């Protein structure tokens, strides 16, 4: 059984206008998405800004009011706050934020920041609490003298690791990581990513890894969902997405990753511009009459794509022939 199942999740924001300030329309930030996160895996949610990926992450933690749909955890729908409390859901699911500086209280010391979730849930004695905080700092590779410092006294990478320490304090089963490394330098990014993998192996944590960086996602995630305009356009394993992409939007995203092999950059640029042209020309084949992605259809047990069934089949067939 999956750790978390998300069924037809929708988050709509109302637009009010007119004399009576009635709801006249809505922004469909997330418009009917479904996926499952298995225990111990890293699930990648990829999309450009405005695609609804962060809103999805927030609704899974319970920070966003869900319009409709279900999030099933231990067989129960946790979109209701009462259910969340009964299942200790808020303890089992934690979050790491993108901007480590603004997500840590500047007026609190590290000790209090990391101890806050413990004080909320575990109610330890003073000595035990301190021991646990020291243990957490040790896990993320910080010294004991960090305890009495304030967030501004740390570098970006260290702050992000403090954020991770706070997230793992309650022994969560799932961590939502919303762009955890996009504000960091390359060498610091490597440090934080390695470290996230390491605690995953140690504690069997699952991640919902939200990112726009397909290079990082390939490194981290076993299963990946590509999100666009509030819906999923393609969903599959790392192999499916990176080696057999079917939806043109996925191909476009992949083509936009800068080529790090200098010798092939001219060829890569030509490919990218060809894909971009195709994307502009073939909107009607890949999106429905309203410009929204189609519902997902399965092309293999693991690989789903948002296209009409016969079109998806013919694309998958063509792809197989190219591979053969």
């Amino acid at each position, binding site marked *: 059984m999956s750790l978390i199942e998300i069924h037809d999740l929708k988050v709509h924001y109302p637009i009010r206008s007119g004399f009576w300030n009635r709801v006249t329309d809505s922004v469909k930030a997330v418009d009917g998405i479904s996926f499952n996160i298995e225990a111990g895996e890293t699930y990648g949610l990829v999309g450009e*800004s405005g695609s609804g990926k962060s809103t999805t992450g927030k609704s899974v933690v319970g920070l966003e009011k869900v319009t409709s749909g279900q999030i099933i955890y231990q067989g129960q729908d946790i979109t209701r706050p009462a259910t969340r409390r009964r299942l200790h859901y808020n303890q089992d699911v934690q979050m790491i934020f993108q901007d480590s500086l603004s997500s840590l209280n500047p007026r609190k010391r590290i000790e209090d920041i990391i101890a806050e979730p413990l004080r909320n849930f575990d109610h330890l004695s003073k000595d035990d609490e301190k021991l646990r905080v020291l243990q957490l700092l040790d896990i993320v590779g910080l010294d004991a003298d960090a305890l009495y410092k304030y967030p501004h006294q740390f570098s970006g990478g260290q702050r992000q690791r403090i954020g991770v320490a706070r997230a793992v304090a309650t022994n969560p089963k799932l961590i939502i990581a919303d762009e955890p490394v996009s504000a960091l330098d390359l060498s610091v*990014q*490597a440090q934080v990513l390695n470290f996230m993998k390491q605690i995953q192996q140690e504690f069997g944590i699952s991640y919902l890894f939200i990112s726009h960086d397909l290079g990082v996602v390939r490194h981290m995630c076993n299963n990946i969902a590509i999100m666009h305009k509030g819906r999923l356009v393609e969903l599959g394993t790392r192999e499916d997405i990176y080696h057999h992409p079917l939806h043109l939007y996925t191909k476009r995203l992949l083509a936009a990753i800068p080529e790090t092999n200098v010798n092939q950059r001219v060829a890569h640029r030509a490919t990218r511009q060809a894909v971009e042209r195709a994307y502009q020309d073939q909107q009607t084949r890949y999106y429905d009459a309203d410009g929204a992605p189609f519902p997902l259809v399965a092309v293999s047990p693991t690989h789903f794509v948002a296209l009409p069934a016969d079109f998806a089949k013919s694309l998958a067939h063509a792809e197989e022939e190219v591979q053969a």
Partner: protein
Amino acid sequence: MATEENFLTIKDVSTAFKINGQYYDAISHINLTVHHDEILALVGESGCGKSTLATTIMGLHDPEETRISGVVDFEGTNLLQLDEDGYNQFRGAKIGMIFQDPLSALNPLKRVEDQIQEVLDYHTTLSTAAKHDRVMELLDQVGIVNPPLTARQYPHELSGGMRQRVIIAIAIACKPDLIIADEPTTALDVTIQAQILDVLRSIQAENHAGIILITHDLGVVAETADRVAVMYAGQIVESGSAEQIFNTPKHPYTRSLLRSMPQRNNESDDLYVIQGNVPSLRRLPTTGDRFASRIPWVPASEHEATPTMHEVAPGHEVRCTCYRNFTFPDEKGSDHV
């Protein structure tokens, strides 16, 4: 017209900031040249001084708080000797600058057209009608689909990619010889980033301009740059053509950076992490190799007492001698994955 001559030569430039009454070098003894028709990428992590170099060239530092030495020779003029009025003849006219955050670089109260026209007002004597035509031409050149519509809009009505295009239009309004682009795509999505880089490249080809592209993203560099200078802790540690830097990197720092890129790694492997931290401005080592503390397994005898640049191939220079026998601790031989 395009010439092979260096139109920008930076000689021995150092910029020091005053902190509590003491000066600390943010960049020290930088030597660089920029040619027409090329994109020179300045790469490095945050705090390495790449933006400081850009603002030094543009003369944007407060003379009370900074101490600048060296020569920035721009087509025969030493920019560092100019006063504010003299600088204004260059800024915007012959040197254009593109900033990282397009929203804060634009005036929220002015329409796009007025913002672009402002540059033309200051530096040209065109008639109002000619200015209007030029604005349309510029918007078209940076790939804006409907120039008359966009010209009437305010910055908040535009998407991030469109705003950055407007910034580029402002920067190139007077056909500058030099464009300094400071992290022009960092705030943008990958697909938009690719488009903006295409725009930069086409503008460079049309105007025969030289571009200094400042970025921390090695992918962007590999995709766009002709020449690359890698900076660490205020110094250039390696410079050469893009092929030289990416195919045969020499300096331990360059090699470490390339090894820590997720794109270049196997999915299951751990990424390479450089030991230690970047030293802060006030704690920079005054002698010896500044990178030495990050590669502690390399014996001191491998480093030079006063590291200098060594030419390893035509146009390819590396600082310090420690690159010669450098290997990573977990392997013997090459680091090619």
